């Protein structure tokens, strides 16, 4: 294991409980990566090595998962991660216009982070909030029936 990277005691207990749910340790890879991402804010190569060691998996297997699933990030994102759905139901109700608005407001392209590391802007596929489209996810909170005005209000309230 590398460079002194280690889960907190609480996370270790949590991990133990998760691993116990499966007959094979490796099955805990996705939930373990979630724990790691929350604790270390990104799945860096050091984290990959740490997780591979914890679960007895090859580095290749961990790296495959990291590269396959879109919700894991190999590098730290901005303090606020805005994920705007641009799939069909949201786009029918103006998601692409909202994307243009967010880009202009944050002065970054989708996939980028503001220089002050406050915001990362991403477009994502259907988030399952089609009935209250357009929708965006800001960290773990969903904002539904989104408008430009709504975006202004949400962003203004952020510390």
């Amino acid at each position, binding site marked *: 294991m590398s460079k002194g990277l280690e889960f907190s005691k609480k996370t270790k207990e949590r991990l133990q409980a998760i691993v116990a749910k*499966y007959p094979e340790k490796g099955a805990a890879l996705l939930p373990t990566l*979630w724990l790691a991402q929350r604790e270390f804010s990104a799945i860096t190569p050091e984290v990959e090595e740490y997780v591979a060691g914890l679960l007895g998996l090859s580095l290749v297997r961990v790296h495959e998962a990291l590269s*396959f699933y879109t919700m894991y990030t190999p590098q730290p994102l901005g303090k606020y991660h805005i994920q705007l759905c641009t799939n*069909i139901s949201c786009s029918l109700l103006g998601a692409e216009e909202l994307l243009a608005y967010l880009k202009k407001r944050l002065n970054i392209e989708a996939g980028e982070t503001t220089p002050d590391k406050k915001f990362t802007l991403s477009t994502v596929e*259907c988030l399952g909030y089609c009935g209250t489209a357009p929708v965006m996810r800001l960290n773990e909170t969903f904002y539904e029936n989104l408008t430009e005005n709504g975006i202004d209000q949400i962003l203004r309230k952020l510390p």
Partner: protein
Amino acid sequence: MPELVLTKNVGKKDSHTLGIYEQGGGYQALKKALLEMKPEDVIKEVDKSGLRGRGGAGFPAGKKWSFIPKEAPKPKYLTVNADEGEPGTFKDRVIMENDPHMLVEGSIITSYAIGIYQAYIYVRGEYTRSISRLEDAINEAYARGYLGKNILDTGYYLDMAVHPGAGAYICGEETALLESLEGKKGQPRMKPPFPAIVGLFQGPTVINNVETIACVPHIIKNGGEWFNNLGAPGVGGGIKLFPVSGHVKKPGVYELPVGTPLREIIYNYAGGVRGDKKVKAVIPGGSSAPVLKVEEIDVKMDFNSLAAIGSMMGSGAIIVMDEDTDLVKTLRILIKFYAHESCGKCTPCREGTGWMAKIITRIEKGQGESSDLDALLDIANGIRGRTLCPMGDAAAMPVQSFVTKFRGEFEDYIKRG
């Protein structure tokens, strides 16, 4: 208007808690099943209900369960598919957020019926609230003796856990879901062997959609025949959740009899089209289902009626597009989605979706050529029916239906440049 079954608690305060669920008669079905019914009777009852899989494929649930061998060298598993990712679909989330115990109870009854001692609920990673509500519900159920050892003093035991996904539409495909649950990339497995024989951790595995499992307690409580009769007259198959989105006045999830006409859902329940515009096109069963023209919206929303007109019920998600909708852009959004979500394992889907996305993007940018539409159809034909998993068809069908049914609009777009 019959009484609501799956969504009756939606909007109630603390509807997700055990207390509220039990007040409404929750876990009575579990007691009935475990204390009064033999496992095979549970399967028989579900068989009678006409319940067909609500995830998209529409396979009869009772029949699916009967494929599980009684004796197997490896443990059997129930896996609930809560990887709701089909664009336009948001019905399972409504159940998990508002009534997670319904899913938990349904999962216990299902496990009991098949002789399963471990169940997993695979929830897409984006559904953070569903995940926490389900985890809470499972904890409550353990505390109350509905899960764990010696459930209701019957000697039956069951463990249940939530498994979070991490962003991959393909994990909604049942074998990809199993791979993902085993901690791998979510890439579909070849079949056979079918999951009913060799599934999760090599054990026989039942995979059912959230809505399907949520119907089970009601079927056990009120009988299979009762459920079947909730379907439209002459159609049967119970009630179904129809998530409606797009250009309607009142989007949302509507619980209606299977076989309710599409037009009725759009105009009577979803309030008709915004700004009272005309309908141009409707996708009737999630983004993969072939699009319908306005002339076709009198179709009944059931598996057979939709198949008869060349579309499908899929997840039952209805996406309404009004007369001003730019179908080139809409199709571009859909194809890009499939290209983005293709797992890359088999050739036609991996290469074909990306290729189609490039063509439609070029057309949208005004650089289309007259041969592009035939190229799109040709590629879609090359994918259809030839991929490892159903996602190939899912990507091909929108292209085929959009380009065929609205060819004039696509041609005009290309001519305008």
